[in-house]
């Protein structure tokens, strides 16, 4: 039940993260994969740069996963891997994988983790366009 949480500057191995959560007791695995889109708000994106405050990000990620275990006691295994550094179009930025005995909870827990991750985990995204860069969500 120890969650597999990581922040890495290496390409994410999605299959490994999903394999990490599979057990014979869990019939359902839900995985969310966030990839680099070629546009953002209609503006063409060339690549992304993720910056992370690693030690705090892992602390906060641990809190998020603990909350998920509290909300869904049947939650069995969790893996969250977030990439940092420079990412090209199509690269995997984040994978969240959860295993539960039944499928409805796998969807709910996975969605809770990615939604909450986006609110509290100390990772920042800088989008690179044809004509400059911008920190995402920095200004109102």
């Amino acid at each position, binding site marked *: 039940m120890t969650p597999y949480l990581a922040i890495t500057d290496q390409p994410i191995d999605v299959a490994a993260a999903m394999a990490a959560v599979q057990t014979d007791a869990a019939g359902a695995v839900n995985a969310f994969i*966030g990839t680099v889109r070629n546009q953002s708000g209609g503006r063409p994106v060339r690549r992304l740069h993720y910056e992370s405050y690693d030690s*705090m990000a892992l*602390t906060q990620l641990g809190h998020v996963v603990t909350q998920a275990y509290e909300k869904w006691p049947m939650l069995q295994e969790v893996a969250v891997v*977030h990439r940092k550094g420079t990412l090209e179009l199509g690269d995997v930025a984040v994978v969240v994988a959860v295993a539960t005995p039944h499928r409805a909870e796998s969807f709910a827990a996975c969605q809770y983790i990615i939604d909450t*991750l*986006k609110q509290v985990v100390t*990772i*920042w995204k800088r989008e690179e366009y044809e004509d400059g860069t911008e920190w995402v*969500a*920095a200004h109102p």
Partner: protein
Amino acid sequence: MPAGNRGLSKIYVEDMSLKVTLYGITRDIVGTSVIELPAPAPATVGELLEEMRKQYPALGELRSCAVAVNHEYADNDQPLHTVDEIALIPPVAGG
């Protein structure tokens, strides 16, 4: 808590300097990744934010700017100590 300890604590706060680490757009605004605030440094998270916004008004234009103390989000009334790991946290955008 005995009065003597309170007095000692007061002297300690007035003497201390603080190191604040800056991430994302706050580093761009301040122009460095670590800023050192010499004594007398802000005694609480709220005072730190007030001081930083005074020196760098662009921080006030952000959607939000939190302070983290030892990897946890901190309220304005949380006291600060030299040994704390302190960071400015602009709006996060992981995922």
